[in-house]
């Protein structure tokens, strides 16, 4: 598997969430994802970008176009230097929230992706990586 193209965009303020959605849409379209897959990717990105701004105090998103044989994929890495997540399993539970949301951000993004990785610890920031294959 190789990374064909990469780009990093800031995810600092609320209006960046809209920019993230548009950027992910452009990438997913150019990689030939179906409309349903595009929508899933953009929705997952929207959830994670909001988390990055609201809980992580801002961070960045790195987009990577993937190639594995004939397969094409898109990987999104959200990273922040915020307070981190003390209990990863709890954070991934449907309906669990510390910020007054629906608690579907992380768990929902995981369901909308083919690959999901959550790396976080108190004081160490949070890195969420998702990927979808075409």
């Amino acid at each position, binding site marked *: 598997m190789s990374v064909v193209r990469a780009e990093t965009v800031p995810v600092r303020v609320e209006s960046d969430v809209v920019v993230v959605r548009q950027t992910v849409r452009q990438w997913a379209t150019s990689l030939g994802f179906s*409309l349903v897959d*595009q*929508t899933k990717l953009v*929705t997952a990105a*929207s959830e994670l970008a*909001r988390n990055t701004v609201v809980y992580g105090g801002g961070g960045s998103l790195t987009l990577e176009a993937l190639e594995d044989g004939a397969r094409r994929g898109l990987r999104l890495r959200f990273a922040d230097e915020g307070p981190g997540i003390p209990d990863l399993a709890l954070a991934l539970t449907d309906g669990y929230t510390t910020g007054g949301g629906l608690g*579907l*951000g992380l768990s*929902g993004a995981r*369901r909308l992706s083919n690959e999901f990785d959550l790396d976080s610890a108190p004081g160490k920031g949070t890195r969420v990586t998702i990927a979808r294959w075409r």
Partner: protein
Amino acid sequence: MERIPILKMGPFLLVTIQVDMHDRLAMVLQDDLTSMISRTGARGVLLDISALEIVDSFIGRMISNIAAMARVLDAETVVVGMQPAVAITLVELGLSLPGVRTALNVERGMALLRDAVRRADGAGTDAGADAIAAALAGEEDDGGGDAPRGPRGAPPA
């Protein structure tokens, strides 16, 4: 400040969301809509989201909230025009918007609201419902309300 316009059509309010909504805009819409319902005494809200390319948990929550708040203010809410890809994604995300009425397009949504109001008012036995029905008969000539115009023959708000 950017705002999503709310159109009054007879006893109903029509909101067509056509921008990629950021969270604050969604919150403002929620506030605007509830105050408009209470100010106009509107009986129904039609939320047209056919132009929305995604509905994430935040917008999903806004939709549920609008429906719940409207109900408390004695107005029905119908969400119309959700795209297939959006619907599939929303279900996958884990949201099914229970308690929110839906319709395929604005025309059907209007019919649904009309039915709901008629039922709530006791199947058109009182004069108020007749007035609403008359007002809506006028709306129907507008071609399903795809291009909303000013209310015709609507009772004064």
